């Protein structure tokens, strides 16, 4: 075995590296060096051969649709020109149309509220649960696994279940309110409540992700740190604010940013529960884009794509911050 190991370390790549560090006193023959170079090239060929499928895939199924989307947003498409081509190039006219649309302001505001409120509650509840589950008790692993259920269910399942729970006439939530003597709320059909209803459902769906990621972050805090804090007399809340939270900050930042990127693109829940209504009261950029492109008999692909591209810019801006933080953490 030792023999093979020795033999293995004599691969061209490592002998080249050795030469560079001057470990080989005798200059290598021309032939050997050429063989090494050839071997390295064939290594690169193999590496890229294995990558070829995913590169082609990314170009055809990501880059091309995205380019297509950009093109859609810069031309004045009708149904006819959508099928046959030849739509006139109109520059940023679609974007102008979108910004001037009375739906734009509310949709942007709803996106911000929906995302911010969702994140605050998902994160806080997720963190509280993660802290709770770090106290290992009987059944804790099983219960923690059960908490994943809302995250794993198809969104249409959770959305339709919440629709029925929040139904004005026969929903359980209103029945509970009635039991306490409160007036029923038109959760999904009142413009004052629809955005809150979809946000509640989204919080429920997002808690598991926050729980799992923050839990693994808490597990990574060395036990000695907590013990030391305890010796110093830091207990309970004090330990949480002064020790746990600061140590958890990198993981928290990543969780929140990733949650942000995911929440910006939430579409299914809102569309299934309220279709963005009533009268746009729960419309976000994502549902607006869908409605423009697919929700009407006469599709407005140009403006729809323009809204979509605005959404992409927002997602990518936060996405890049996320990648930057993650990289910095990986090398820290």
């Amino acid at each position: 075995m030792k023999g093979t190991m020795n033999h293995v370390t004599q691969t061209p790549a490592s002998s080249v590296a050795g030469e560079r560090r001057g470990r080989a006193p005798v200059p290598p023959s021309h032939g050997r060096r050429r063989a090494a170079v050839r071997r390295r090239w064939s290594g690169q060929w193999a590496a890229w051969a294995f990558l070829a499928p995913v590169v082609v895939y990314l170009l055809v199924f990501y880059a091309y649709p995205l380019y297509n989307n950009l093109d859609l947003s810069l031309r004045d498409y009708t149904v006819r020109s959508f099928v046959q081509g030849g739509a006139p190039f109109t520059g940023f006219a679609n974007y102008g149309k979108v910004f001037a649309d009375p739906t734009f302001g509310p949709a942007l505001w709803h996106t911000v509220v929906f995302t911010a409120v969702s994140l605050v509650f998902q994160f806080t509840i997720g963190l509280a649960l993660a802290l709770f589950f770090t106290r290992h008790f009987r059944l804790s692993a099983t219960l923690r696994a059960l908490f994943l259920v809302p995250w794993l269910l198809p969104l249409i399942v959770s959305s339709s279940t919440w629709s029925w729970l929040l139904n004005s006439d026969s929903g359980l939530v209103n029945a509970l309110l009635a039991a306490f003597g409160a007036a029923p709320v038109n959760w999904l059909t009142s413009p004052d409540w629809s955005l809150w209803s979809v946000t509640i459902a989204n919080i429920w769906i997002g808690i598991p992700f926050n729980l799992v990621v923050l839990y693994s972050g808490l597990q990574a805090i060395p036990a000695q740190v907590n013990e030391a804090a305890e010796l110093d007399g830091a207990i309970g809340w004090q330990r949480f604010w002064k020790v746990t939270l600061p140590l958890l900050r990198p993981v928290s930042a990543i969780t929140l940013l990733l949650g942000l990127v995911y929440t910006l693109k939430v579409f299914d829940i809102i569309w299934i529960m309220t279709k963005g209504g009533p009268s746009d009261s729960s419309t976000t950029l994502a549902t607006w884009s869908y409605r423009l492109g697919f929700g009407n008999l006469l599709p407005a692909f140009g403006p729809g794509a323009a809204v979509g591209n605005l959404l992409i810019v927002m997602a990518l801006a936060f996405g890049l911050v996320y990648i930057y933080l993650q990289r910095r953490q990986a090398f820290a």
Partner: protein
Amino acid sequence: MSAARSWGKTAIGLVLTGLMLFPVYWMINVSFTRDQDMRKSPPHLFPVDGTLEGYRAVLEQQGPYLVTSLVVGLGTVAVTLLIAAPAGYSLAKLRPRGGGALSFALLIAQMIPGIIMAMGFYAIFLSTGVLNTIPGLIVADSTLAVPFAVLVFTAFMSGIPEELLQAARVDGAGVLRTFWSVVLPVSRNSLITVSLFAFLWAWSDFIFASTLDQGGDHQPITLGIYHYIGNNNQQWNAIMATAVIASIPAAVLLVIAQRYVAAGVTAGAMKD
């Protein structure tokens, strides 16, 4: 920690889990509720006088949708593995020049909102004639999984000991042989994780189905439920029964593959 305190925490944990999963219980409860009890106020908390009407309706009407979802799910798994596993191997072990840029592109790809992909696909699918077809839907659904899959494979395969690969090389195995008979077998866990998530995402997909397959002859179960809500919003036991059946893959996944699930959730967030 005393035994009593531990049991106390377990009790709190049970209550919290119960609260969290209450909507799921409610879905099951409603799926067994008779039509005439559906609008009862207050509603029954347990399926007293339970009925299987809802499930009968599902079996009669939703069968084809379920089959389509199964086919689309399996197809998505196949496409995802075929594309992502070699890429993961290369990024983890073959040190391609420019690999970092590719990983970066994959991270970005994961963040693109589905609605934008759907709109981009729509025009392309329309002109190539794959709109409203199962292969078209499989391709679209695979975009949900491929970037994640490559990143997971890269992370897992980086952990394969270099000696193992070198031993294979010494035995005369080429890169391809090494990949097929050494790397893939030891990467079983990541293959399972990726397959489970790819299947689940394809099974759960609504946005691609509702845009790229809305006029198709074969539609997945998510559209089955959606049409149900739209058409007969009186028969909520049937809607919820369909929802229960559509949740089965998630439940199975959680029971048989719990540790893979948690690994997948954190891999997406933490690993590079």
